[in-house]
């Protein structure tokens, strides 16, 4: 099961031969995925799981229609059947389409995740022992009632060829480490995690060191215990300092999704929702304070959603979406840009071989400012410093949100004065970012990602990258849990 299909010239030739030449546009997108899932729970190894997922999506635009067909049968006859199916759909949908313009790019190029330390230099026995070590560091107290250390390694090879001559080969290597400690006393349970929604990326075994995987277990176990006796987060309007691993969620939900052009165009209204952002806002809308600079940057080495080309074959480059607080560009690929007439980015992405590309976030980053974290804390008279998301909810236009975190620290008169449990805050995207009053510098800037962003009909789950320093917001409605 280890031969790399992407290196098979015979398969590439089959794909090319399968594509019809008498249509407006045809593409074949091969996706070959391999992953290894390791987990140790309460110092016991859970069953190792090895996953292989390979298939091709054929897309055909012709005569004003579009059809796709996804198959795992990579034989000449299997591909021919998929082409016939896609052709049929194109004929059925001709004259009934939202848009008739296929992707315009036919680029040639390659991309490969930067790998410093090949994953396979860390033998399976070493990987399992590493997890056992972390597990033992988590289960340090009888009040820790459940704990787990996990590693997922995932490799994805993609080859896109089109009737217009495109050939794009991309090889992605991902690592997803995670830790979890659950502490309990009576009706009070507190969960502290590492990884999950933030600390994952592209690369090899060096990803573990990049995020301090080997050093995190003791801290999260101790913090889970600390939360058991911490007071409830106070309920009041105050300053809110968000650590980078909560900024991931804040960026994702209240900047990323609202700027997706397919939401603005209405494609998602039956499921993921629409957007409070409307087309006329681009170029003038004050999205945030002047401190807010947001980039779409698929070029950050090792970030989760870095790539050379999107799944329609558009070359990916860094673009400013929000420039000194002003909204300048949306998150929409080639097709959405043509439909909307709005500026976009190369972000047409699919979750796998069996799903068609749609507008997705990739790496969406808040650029660093000039303050140190210590300066930001020192500027706060009355506030909280929140770390690690554990709950998120936002309305269908991505406006009214409420987010919760695992771990909170009270800040009074410029100093951290204690830990608080069950911290939450709520706000409205349209105005929340205008209260951004401090952005930490490059020392706080952390490159992260989240592996599970759900969207689309049919549903798709993809990874998105987010990098950010700690950020300070004023006048936020903060509150705690149930007494």
């Amino acid at each position: 099961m280890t031969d790399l299909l992407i290196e098979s010239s015979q398969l590439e030739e089959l794909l090319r031969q399968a594509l019809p030449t008498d249509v407006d546009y045809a593409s074949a997108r091969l996706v070959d995925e391999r992953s290894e899932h390791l987990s140790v729970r309460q110092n016991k190894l859970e069953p190792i799981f090895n996953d292989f997922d390979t298939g091709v999506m054929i897309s055909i635009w012709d005569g004003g229609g579009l059809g796709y067909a996804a198959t795992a049968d990579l034989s000449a006859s299997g591909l021919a059947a998929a082409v016939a199916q896609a052709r049929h759909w194109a004929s059925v949908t001709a004259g009934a389409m939202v848009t008739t313009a296929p992707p315009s790019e036919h680029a040639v190029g390659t991309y490969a995740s930067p790998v410093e330390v090949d994953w396979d230099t860390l033998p399976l026995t070493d990987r399992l022992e590493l997890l056992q070590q972390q597990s033992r560091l988590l289960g340090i107290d009888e009040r820790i009632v459940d704990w787990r250390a996990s590693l997922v390694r995932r490799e994805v090879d993609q080859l896109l060829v089109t009737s217009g001559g495109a050939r794009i080969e991309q090889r992605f290597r991902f690592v997803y480490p995670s830790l979890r400690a659950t502490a309990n006393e009576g009706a009070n349970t507190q969960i502290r995690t590492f990884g999950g929604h933030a600390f994952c990326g592209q690369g090899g075994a060096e990803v573990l060191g990049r995020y301090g995987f080997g050093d995190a277990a003791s801290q999260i176990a101790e913090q889970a215990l600390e939360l058991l006796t911490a007071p409830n987060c106070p309920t009041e309007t105050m300053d809110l300092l968000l650590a980078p691993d909560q900024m991931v969620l804040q960026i994702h939900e209240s900047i990323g999704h609202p700027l997706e052009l397919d939401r603005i165009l209405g494609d998602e209204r039956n499921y993921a929702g629409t957007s409070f952002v409307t087309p006329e806002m681009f170029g003038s809308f004050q999205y945030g304070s002047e401190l807010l600079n947001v980039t779409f940057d698929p070029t950050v080495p090792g970030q989760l959603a870095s790539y050379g080309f999107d799944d329609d074959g558009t070359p990916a480059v860094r673009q400013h979406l929000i420039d000194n607080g002003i909204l300048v560009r949306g998150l929409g690929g080639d097709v959405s840009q043509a439909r909307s007439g709005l500026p976009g980015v190369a972000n047409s992405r699919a979750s796998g071989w069996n799903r068609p590309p749609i507008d997705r976030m990739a790496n969406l980053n808040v650029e660093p400012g000039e303050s140190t974290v210590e300066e930001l804390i020192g500027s706060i008279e009355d506030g909280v410093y929140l770390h690690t998301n554990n709950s998120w909810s936002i309305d269908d236009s991505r406006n009214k949100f409420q987010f919760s975190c695992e771990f909170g620290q009270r800040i009074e008169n410029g100093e951290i004065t204690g830990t608080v449990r069950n911290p939450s805050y709520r706000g409205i995207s349209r105005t929340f970012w205008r209260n951004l009053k401090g952005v930490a510098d490059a020392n706080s800037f952390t490159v992260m990602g989240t592996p599970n962003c759900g969207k689309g009909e049919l549903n798709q789950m993809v990874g998105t990258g987010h990098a950010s320093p700690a950020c300070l917001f004023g006048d936020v409605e903060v509150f705690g849990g149930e007494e």
Partner: protein
Amino acid sequence: MSEADHTYFDELITAATTRLVGDEVLLANVTGERTDFIRLNNNDVRQAGTVVQRRLAVDLIEGQRHVAGAFQLTGERSIDDARLTALLGQLREQRRLVADDPYLLFNTSPTSTERIEAGSIPEPDAALADIRAAGKGRDLVGIYAAGDTYSGFANSLGQRNWFQSATFNLDWCFYLQADKAAKNLYAGFNWDEDAFARKIDWSNRQLAALERDPINLLPGEYRTYLAPRAMEEFVHLMSVYGAFGQRAHATRQTPLLRMIADDATLSPLITISENTAEGIAPNFQSAGFIRPATVPLVVDGQYAQTLVSPRSAQEYGIPTNGASNGEYPESMTIAPGTVATSTVSEALDTGLFVGNLWYTNFSDRMACRTTGMTRFATFWVEDGEIVAPVSVLRFDDTAYNLLGDQLEGLTDETEVLLDTSTYIERSTMSSQLPGALVGAMRFVL
């Protein structure tokens, strides 16, 4: 094609069994589908196509040691035989490196079953024509998914289980403007033009009600009716976070922790079951255990049983009841009450009629305190009559209020709700729920 897949799976595993070594045991699960998808926006097609996939997952066991893996079947027997052989070789190599698994448990008493639900689904061309005709002049947005889905289990001990169905699912909205839309679902085994017409008629009538000027309500507590779809969103969150799962229960992570640690209760009106007999999910699970027809989870507001996976059964020393590893209901039912469904607006009298909730999550998980939004058709009702649609509101309240102290009644009819999820593959989850009349529900934004 599903019958062919059934035979193919059977023969593939039978052949693989002959290649096992020593005392090895092989567990195999296949899930597959051939689904036509049509995505629509403004009554036009955004994307349309067909997905064919068959995923085989295997667990290779020797004694108490085992390793698992999965891959996509191509449908070409020689290729799939070779891939399965290669995968089993890899698992065998890895198995040498792992210790005994103390929680390994699989069914060793072969019980073979077969359930096939045939359907009558129109050709995709015809379905698209029907849908666009019904949406003519409307801003119709949504997804149509139709075709065969199946799940199979086989092991080297001779057990064979098969579940397949041919279903369609049209999940759509008629949009009026901004966030005002009539949401509806037409799903089943047999496409019936009259039934579809009735669904369209319902949507048209609800759209008319939405044309009134919306009102903005201030945060506060309101008397509320939660329609079955809204109830589904609320209880689904609890379910997937382990409210009814043995592992979450034993490790004090269940959202209903206060029911076991503080003697909290839900309303005596609440009875919740896992009702496999009336659902559309397979009646077997991945280790080969057969699910009972029903498992009572909450009875008259009190915890009854948990869903116990085979691993939890070993870990906690109790029998499994055929739950999947996630230990969440796949065919949940909440027993109906006595509020007349046909006159529920009159029972509400004055308050909020909430058709759908959206994006629920916990604001304090261990207190089962949940937040979320109203979505689509939410109306302000006075004296039993709809006055106006209501702009979206955020709620933040506990299950102990909404399904406890503040629960005044449940409707006397339940609605069968098929899960429309298509992450990775089409879901076979469903629920059967009543609506709930709540004395006071807390809205915060």
